């Protein structure tokens, strides 16, 4: 006990010393820019892709043109890994001195970054930009928060249904035209070929599940007067959740394996030839081409409730935005326009297969590459977006929806209970975010 009391006394003394010796509040950084330099070095962070070389070439061309147009301005591009982007970008917001001027960011992060005070409002410049009028409405929505624009869309990503042509021919079955047919077909295939998942699904594959909710008329959240309210427990949304979770089980995708799968695992299973169908994005095309199923698959839009309907897809994609802390605002906005302009997006499609955000450039792309046709049709049928609330980042990061799906799949809760719990968590996040 002697030792204990001695430690306690020392600790108390040290705590007192600590109180007097250190600043009394945790750090907060000021993020407003002090100046607008017309020369100097612009720093840019872009995402590192799996095959990054072609992207670099497109970016380099845009940068070269920029540097010719602005004497005395230099551009430093850094490609950051996608997995650790959240930490990097948070760090950039926390330490404006070492922050870049321009960043590429995922479009679900827009509202969160704006709330964090990291992105600059470029509404005026975006409005005056002639190319911006061809930006499709969903892409425009993905850079807009409360009517203000915080960047330029770089590309959109959308998911559709990949299926194995050889398996379908073998079993003599037709491509499903409705959601019910899709589920029945998946189970039929698994019955005939037990070593294949009929339709590969994942309990953590939120973006693969959303179309089921939307197709049934459900919504993730309802926006009313600037604040959001969760709608994930509405009757329509529950129907969609029920439809999606009915795909887990020994008759299609065994829960023990599929409950934990995310989007990448689903695509990997399809590419490896372990699944007859999978929901995958236009950006998954390269991975599937590199897999065992090359040449024996095709893509159609994910069917909706009735024949001929397309289930609304999630409009993913990335944007480019100027940081609020940038001391080269004018230059940064110009570089943003060049990187996200029509010319760069057209080239980026040729190089990487990223779908352009301009309707006219996209139509051009579809002519060149037939494989994107089903994705463009999906976009044309009306893609949807996650709630434009700063709370979305937290809802996403705290795995509210995957937890809900997994609770249902593993039989811990029924659809009503799990969805009302999820709605409660979402509402808590919406309330906190104000």
């Amino acid at each position, binding site marked *: 006990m002697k030792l204990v009391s001695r430690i306690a006394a020392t600790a108390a003394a040290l*705590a007192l010393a*600590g109180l007097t010796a250190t600043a009394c*509040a945790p750090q*907060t950084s000021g993020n407003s820019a002090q100046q607008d330099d017309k020369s100097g070095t612009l720093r840019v962070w872009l995402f590192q892709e799996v095959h990054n070389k072609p992207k670099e070439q497109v970016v380099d061309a845009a940068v070269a043109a920029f540097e010719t147009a602005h004497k005395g301005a230099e551009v430093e591009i850094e490609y950051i890994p996608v997995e650790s982007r959240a930490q990097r970008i*948070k760090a950039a917001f926390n330490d404006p001195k070492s922050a870049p001027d321009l960043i590429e960011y995922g479009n679900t992060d827009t509202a969160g970054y704006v709330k*964090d005070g*990291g992105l600059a409002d470029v509404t005026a410049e975006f409005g005056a930009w002639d190319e911006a009028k061809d930006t499709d409405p969903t892409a425009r929505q993905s850079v807009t928060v409360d009517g203000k624009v915080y960047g330029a869309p770089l590309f959109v990503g959308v998911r559709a249904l990949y299926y194995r042509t050889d398996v379908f021919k073998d079993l003599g079955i037709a491509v499903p035209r409705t959601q019910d047919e899709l589920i029945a077909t998946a189970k039929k295939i698994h019955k005939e070929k037990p070593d294949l998942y009929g339709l590969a699904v994942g309990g953590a594959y939120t973006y693969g599940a959303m179309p089921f909710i939307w197709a049934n008329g459900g919504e993730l959240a309802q926006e009313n007067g600037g604040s959001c309210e969760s709608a994930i427990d509405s009757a329509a949304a529950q129907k969609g959740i029920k439809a999606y979770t009915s795909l887990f089980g020994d008759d299609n995708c065994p829960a023990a394996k599929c409950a934990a799968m995310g989007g990448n695992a689903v695509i990997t299973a399809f590419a490896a030839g372990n699944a007859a169908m999978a929901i995958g994005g236009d950006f998954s095309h390269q991975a599937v081409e590199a897999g065992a199923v090359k040449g024996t698959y095709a893509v159609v839009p994910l069917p909706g409730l009735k024949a001929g309907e397309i289930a609304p897809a999630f409009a993913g994609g990335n944007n480019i935005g100027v940081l609020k802390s940038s001391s080269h605002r004018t230059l940064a906005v110009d570089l943003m326009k060049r990187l996200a302009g029509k010319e760069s997006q057209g080239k980026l499609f040729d190089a990487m297969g990223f779908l352009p955000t301009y309707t006219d450039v996209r139509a051009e792309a579809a002519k060149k590459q037939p494989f994107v046709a089903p994705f463009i049709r999906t976009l044309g049928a009306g893609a949807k977006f996650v709630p434009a609330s700063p709370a979305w980042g*937290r809802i996403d990061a705290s795995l509210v929806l995957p937890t809900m799906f997994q609770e249902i799949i593993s039989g811990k809760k029924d659809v009503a209970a799990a969805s009302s719990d999820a709605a409660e968590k979402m509402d808590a996040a919406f309330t906190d975010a104000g």
Partner: protein
Amino acid sequence: MAYKTAAEPAVAPAGTAARPPDTTAPPAGPARRSGAWTPWLYLAPALVVLAGLLVHPIYQLGLISFLEYTQAQVSGGEPTTFQGLGNYRTLFADSQFWQVLLATVLFAAACVVSTLAVGCALAVLLTRVRALPRLALMLAALGAWATPAITGSTVWVFLFDPDYGPVNRMLGLGDFSWTYGRLSAFALVLFEVVWCSFPFVMVTVYAGIKAIPGEVLEAASLDGASPWRIWRSVMAPILRPILVVVTIQSVIWDFKVFTQIYVMTNGGGIAGQNLVLNVYAYQKAFASSQYSLGSAIGVVMLLILLAVTLVYLRLLRREGEEI
């Protein structure tokens, strides 16, 4: 304390350090007063380092737990506000927190008991085998000890993989998924935690056993004591201070398990069924940027561990031990 052991001398220098003023300082008044500060002077470098590395972070942790401090506050988008006990209220009202806390306590207890049992058993085994097997066991244990937690966890997940894992094939479990069920997932993580933390127990206890005078053990076996009896009535009491240290260490480590759960159950298991407090705090603090709520969890963990350690030391003292 009847026996000289490794843990005892740690107390002695502190005791003697306080004595010199009485014996060496001249009896004059002013000199004696300056003498009273001498031990603090000697301790100062260590205290400064401790204050900087330990007290300051804990102070910041405590402070942040009373504020509204999310990413928006850090990057200056919104002002930092004082919340009083608001974060703690949110935390204690969250039923998931209590579930996670219970799971953490039970899981840590299972890990500590298993680690100590395996570590002590193998330490005794080490003293009874020949040089070559002893060397092999030591090397294997050191290998496990030296393996980074991430690597170890990844390898274990692979070993127990339902499709490619050799364990399922050897046990004939087919495509049984270890990470799907709550208990089996916790069991899998427990195996890994025991595997990477038993070497510390084994090596420490082995060193302790080697320091036990041979004649004591010899006397016991001459009296006809069985190996179990020798362990219970001779070795364990002598090794007690070592076992105390090892137990406290294990409690602290296993209560704070993070990497194994995070890697092996993919961030907390199906629907968060395998969350432990540390991973839960990480989810709150870093994944969803609620630094203040994460800090509150950190403070709760700190208090629990402090309480466990103090109660444990207290109990020992009541039994007449001093460490």
